[in-house]
């Protein structure tokens, strides 16, 4: 999986590419846990192909720690997973 982050003051965008599953989630978790001073976090999921429950858990951890978390460019497959898991109801999806 490829993680691209771009920061702008206290705003940050993390673009995810590939598969966010049990083997790649810890990398993202480490990154999210180390974000200090970020109050507005956006996940760009345009190129995310798959997300497992371990991946959803990391998104959840991010949401608990950061004031504003939003999702952009969500694709059909990931949207379906978000719908099934109910993540659509708790995340701000644009």
């Amino acid at each position, binding site marked *: 999986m490829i993680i691209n982050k771009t920061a702008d003051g206290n705003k940050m965008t993390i673009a995810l590419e590939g598969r966010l599953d049990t083997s790649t989630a810890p990398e993202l978790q480490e990154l999210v846990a180390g974000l200090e001073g970020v109050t507005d976090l956006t996940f760009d999921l345009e190129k995310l192909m798959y997300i497992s429950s*371990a991946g959803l858990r990391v998104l959840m951890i991010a949401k*608990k720690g950061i004031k504003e978390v939003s999702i952009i460019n969500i694709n059909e497959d990931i949207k379906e997973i978000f*719908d*099934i898991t*109910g993540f659509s*109801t708790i995340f701000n999806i644009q």
Partner: protein
Amino acid sequence: MKKIRSNMAVNIISGIVVVFIVVICISGYVGYQSFTQVLSDQYAETAYRTADTALGVIDGSKLDEYLATGGKGEEYETSRANMEELCNRQNAMFIYVIRPDADYSHITFVYNTVNRNSGFDAYKVGYVKDTTNDEYKEIYRRIYEEGLERATVVRDKGFIESGSHITELVPVKDGEKVTGILCVQRQMEALTSARQKYVNDVALALLGPILAVIVLYGVYLHRRLIKPVKTITREAERFARENSDPPQTLSSQITHQDEIGVLARSIDRMTAETLKYMENLTEATAVREKIATQLEVATAIQQNSLPQKFPAFPDRKEFDVYASMTPALEVGGDFYNFFLIDDNHLAMVIADVSDKGIGAALFMMVSNILIHNRALMGGKPSEVLEFVNNQLCAHNETSMFVTVWLGIMEISTGEIIASNAGHEYPIIKQGDGKFELYNDGKHGVMLGIMEGMKFTDYTFKLEKGGALYLYTDGVAEAEDTDHNQFGIDRTIEVLNKQPDATPKEIVNNIKNAIHDFVKDAPQFDDTTMLCVKRTGDLP
């Protein structure tokens, strides 16, 4: 092993013997050469002096005349007698004067005197003979054409008619003109015999020390190499057999500081380390066995927490239910459950904890009990899920969560009220129709993530003959060795091969289909299914 050891000693000693033989040969050859050189020089010098003296008794200008007359006359006779006298006195073999022909291939004798002890007869004056060999021929030429004043020929190798000898050749002159060649031949028996003796003496003198060195070295080798190696081998074999501390360490038996000593100490250390390792391994194995036993107990407890007796409700003819859970590890995070809330209401649960292993299993136990107990207290599925979610969130430090589908069926009507917290869509067959994926709308989020979440209920009706198939993602995401997934479409396809089968047959059909699909690929996710079929109305 014995053969290898013996060979090692033999090889080393053979090597030494070869080295000694080479040394003897080289020193013998060098000695032989210098011995020959010194003696030959001495012989040559003596022969040259004889030749020089002999030149004094002949008149170089008269050679033609002597040949013409065939050596008649008093002058020739006197000179010949003097030469013979000189030959005997100086202990030369032959003294002779020759004249080679134009191409030096024949020689004509002018004088020929023979030592009286030789047993040879002298050639007559004018006797013509082939030149003995090319070496003589070349010397003759150089004496005549290049003014060579002295030449020496040594013949001591191979077969020689007159024995090993040395010949000195000097020109006979008339003024500056060479008129013949005077040759003095001396035998070299003394040289060859002395030389032979020298070689024999050297060989004999070296043989003793060589034998002594070989024997001493053999003994030394045995003590310093063969015996310690045998000791080490015995200990290594004993250790391999007994796996115990040695009765006596190798380093106490082999105290040398050489490589063998180092080897002995290394093996001692290896023995000690191996024993220590074996001890640790035994302990670790014991610990592992204990954990395995505890895991078995955990597996049993978890399995027993789910209803496993089928048929589950043998006296209820209105519905039939069957379920199975196959964990990927010893204990799983998936679970199913079904139970009667009252005579007319059946609760059905299928759930999937986000993790695997012991932690997930404990979380699953808690979730299952909370859902079960809260559902028994009455209320809609959404209320049950809301309650359970808050309970789980209150004490959830591990950020685990669980997807839950909970439905309550009114048995008399087939009316089902359900709520979905992040779980897969159910698959439903209506009446005589086919199994189809049932999109149950907007799901609530999984339980354990966030406190205070609201869940929504929805209702649908199961007609007589209708069935509800619930599953976890282990079914659709079962993978073969090429990472192809079993998939939801294939699941529905398999269900529809026998849409009217009993719940038990339906669950087993899917199980077998997955088994055939993944073949030998290891599965990393739990696989759980629950199937309920409405077989009739209340009697």
